[in-house]
């Protein structure tokens, strides 16, 4: 298949990209091209202009600053998966990036493109929800931070305006007693997530003041904070509030996880994703299994 004709521009800086976007309304930004090029070739998208941002150095790279892990929008999946910083501070993200597609896709595809494209079967949006990420967006009126909650609005729709450019993703670094994990059921052909679950758990000491007052009382480890997100079930990746509530204050045990996992989807509405490979009904029925596995994996990493 061949793309329809388009004009090609290359931007060398974020500012230049902004100017080009202003000059060519309806233009598409090109990062790694692993979502955009297929759309162009299938002629599902036929922009008059494509603006290549792939070589803007300032958009690339991973750094840690105090309590924040910052990842430039052009950083590839392979770089994220291999980064010691990401593995240490956002394990679930490294885990998800390492499971995207195949090596060729991971070497070209970028985190910014993945998020901006917002395919409901993508992995990274789910993880970033669970990790409470903040997105830095450069628009015609300057740069603004946008919280991940509410950023994904539906199938391939986000809070990004047509002339916005995503510059970086910021994630609070994981604390001492925090662990995260991503568990995925990949589609056998596309490798996208049929179901993907990201969980981040923080442990605290259970029992409250009594354990201090009563010598010998067991000081059980409980879940002091839980953040769980699921992709592939409803049109946009969603936080699983019901699961999180069921975990609060409970011991980090298999029983807790099974119980909490059973609550998944109860609060996410009836607009289930489904296709010839896996119906909505099936996805809903097996979602608890993946939630349970993600919780157990995250808990095993709590320091």
């Amino acid at each position: 298949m061949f793309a329809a004709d388009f004009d090609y521009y290359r931007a060398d800086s974020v500012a230049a990209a902004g100017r080009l976007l202003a000059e060519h309304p309806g233009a598409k930004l090109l990062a790694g091209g692993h979502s955009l090029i297929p759309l162009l070739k299938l002629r599902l998208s036929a922009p008059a202009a494509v603006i290549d941002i792939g070589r803007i150095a300032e958009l690339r790279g991973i750094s840690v600053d105090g309590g924040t892990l910052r990842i430039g929008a052009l950083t590839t999946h392979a770089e994220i998966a291999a980064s010691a910083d990401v593995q240490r501070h956002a394990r679930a993200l490294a885990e998800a990036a390492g499971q995207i597609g195949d090596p060729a896709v991971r070497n070209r595809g970028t985190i910014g493109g993945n998020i901006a494209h917002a395919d409901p079967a993508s992995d990274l949006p789910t993880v970033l929800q669970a990790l409470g990420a903040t997105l830095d967006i450069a628009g015609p009126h300057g740069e603004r931070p946008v919280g991940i909650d509410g950023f994904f609005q539906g199938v391939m729709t986000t809070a990004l305006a047509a002339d916005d450019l995503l510059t970086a993703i910021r994630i609070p670094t994981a604390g001492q007693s925090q662990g995260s994990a991503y568990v995925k059921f990949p589609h056998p052909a596309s490798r996208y997530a049929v179901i993907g679950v990201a969980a981040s758990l923080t442990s605290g000491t259970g029992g409250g003041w009594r354990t201090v007052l009563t010598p010998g009382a067991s000081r059980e480890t409980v879940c002091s904070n839980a953040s769980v997100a699921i992709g592939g079930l409803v049109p946009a990746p969603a936080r699983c509030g019901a699961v999180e509530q069921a975990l609060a204050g409970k011991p980090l045990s298999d029983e807790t996880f099974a119980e909490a996992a059973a609550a998944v989807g109860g609060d996410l509405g009836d607009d289930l994703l489904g296709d010839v490979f896996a119906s909505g009904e099936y996805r809903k029925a097996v979602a608890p299994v993946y939630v349970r596995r993600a919780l157990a994996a995250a808990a095993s990493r709590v320091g």
Partner: protein
Amino acid sequence: MSTRIFGSGIRRREDPRLITGSATYTADIRLPGMAHAAMLRSSHAHARITRIDTSAAAAAPGVVAVYTGTDTEGALQPMPCAWLLPDAGLKIAPYPCIAKDVVRYTGDIVAVVVAERLHQAHDAVELIEVDYEPLPAVTDPEQAAGADAPQLHAKDLNGDAIEGNQAFHWTVAGGDVDAAFAAAEADGVVIKERILQQRLIPNAMETRGAVAQYNRASGELTLWNTTQNPHIVRFLCSVVTGVPEDKLRVIAPEVGGGFGSKIAAYPADFVTVFCSKMLGRPIRWTETRSENYQATTHGRDHVQDVELAATKDGKITGLRCTVRAGMGAYLSTAAPGIPTILHGLMLSGCYDIPALKEDVYGVYTNGVPVEAYRGAGRPEATFMLERLIDMLAHKLDLDPADVRRRNFIPKFDNGHEVVTTLNYDSGDYPGALAKLLEHTGYQALREKQKAGPANGRYLGLGLSSYVEICGLGPSQVAGAIGFQGGLWESAIVRVHPTGKVHVFIGASPHGQGEETTFAQIVASEIGVDAGDVKIVHGDTDATPMGWGTYGSRTTAVGGAALAVAVRKIRDKAKVLAAHLLEASVEDMEYEDGRFFVKGSPDKAKTIQDVALMANVAWDLPEGMEAGLEASTFYDPPNFVFPYGAHLAVVEVDAATGHVELTGYTALDDCGPQINPVIVEGQVHGGVVQGIGQALWEGAAYDESGQLVTGSLLDYALPRADGLPPIDVISTVTPSPHHPLGVKGIGEAGTIASTAAVYNAVMDALRPLGVTRVDMPFTPERVWRAIQEAKGS
């Protein structure tokens, strides 16, 4: 010593050029003045064309010409079907190269655009306006055969009515089946099953394509084509386009796999020829991957209703089945022979089954035409039998291995006639299974299974014993079964003055590695270095006639032709060597490339010495012709029958329905192995393709006949990370009638593995009460089957 190179796992000489990207495929051919063709294919599965407007396309930038069915009518004959199945009421529907009035599948060609640049051709295709009047479509073979089904074709090529979409009804029968079933109903067991052999998409790495160069001055045409059989294409191209065979050269350059999908002749190739003739310019057409899904032949597509009769102690007494085989919208080149001759005749497998009957109905559907796909009919036969045997074992509470042992044909080494009248050449089926079971620790695995599931994962074991027919075949048989060609092979061996060798063969390898194995055959017979032997193939002007590479026949038939030819060389060389040594031929001995008088091996003439003298011809024996060259036409006396036994081990996660293949062992007997590394590679690839059918693959059409699995994003091919290491072992039983004793190995893996994996998954699901799941085993299907079994 002379057998050193025969049996050695030397590296494939094909690989360096394939791996480094320096091979030349059809799409790499560039000719001066070449223009590009793109096909407009029907977007409807079944519709009447009421209007085509090509004016906008014709006016688009770079467009040279636009042609529709009106232009090609009369200039291109209908696509021929070349397997005229006898005694089956065969009705061949007209198959125009470009559809003019009615389209019958989403992929039927409606128009062609030729442009200076490739993308201009594709852009202009979008500008062609076609008005369709949609007609109801049917893609399921059983529904298509039903009373109220939409009818695809009113009449066949002879003007006879086609009723019920039936292309043919073929029957094979032997023994007294009715008596067998009556007896089993009264005092035995009868097993019944419905089996769906889903439609598969072959997915060769290289999509199809053609480059046609017609010279108006000479009337000569050269056609570069992605084909498994250039000589057959030459023949069919001459029939369809009218270019006589002497003016027609077909070249199959590097061909990136076929798996059967490059056997058929295709309308698009002849449309490309038509464009070149009309415009007097070379034209290239290269299929896109989406087009490949829509228009290159698919495989399988059987709905099978099967019954097995047996005694209470597990001895099979009869087999009865009805098959509805989807043929797609038209009969592809070899299509009628696949679900019949290559399927029904092998129904008794490696078992002693005294009676069977099968009715096969070939049915037109609004799908891509169905053709041979790796295994071609035999996987569908093996599956049927192997599934029923497992069901019989479960019913009688016997181990599946045990039921197989109770029914095997005993070891034989020179012919065994089965109920379908085929005469198997040699085999030891019980021996193969015994070795497999021992090698895999089958009993220990069964013990482990008895311990019950661990973490909700259920262990399952699946066996598949198979025998297949290949090395097609005696030409007299080809004629009797309606195959419109011979099935012999030929080879020319030419030894140059320096002792280097050219071999010209009619067979057309396209990835299997015969450039390597054929060089090994020559080297082992006359003692030259394998590296000194060049194998020339794939060009009808450069090679002798051949019938192509498919049906695991290239080594079995072409290899035999080569062995016979090269032995003629050795015989002549021996006479010449005797002359040069002033000895009598009777006193001569040959060993490892050297000819000498018995008892004095150090006074020898090498094959190179002899080659030089034969070529300069200064001193030849009285009456001997100059040169060292031989040719053979080898028509095999019988087919060859490779066989084996495979074991698949799976674990099923009951909570999600996920199947994981955790172990796979293939035991295959293809006779003596010329190159065991290549054998292993063929087994790996074949096994994996069969696993793909069981676990992942399946072409699906929606109600309106649109292909919903239209790309690699939806159609799941096997991937390395979903597969266990495949353990390949073998036994060696030579074919008694083959000059080298060898049988075929190209399809064996696929023939065995689908049934092995299916049986393994069903074995795992048994404790959960599941008895039947349609392939492929997607997690949802397995999960649903588990839920349903729980409910009942």
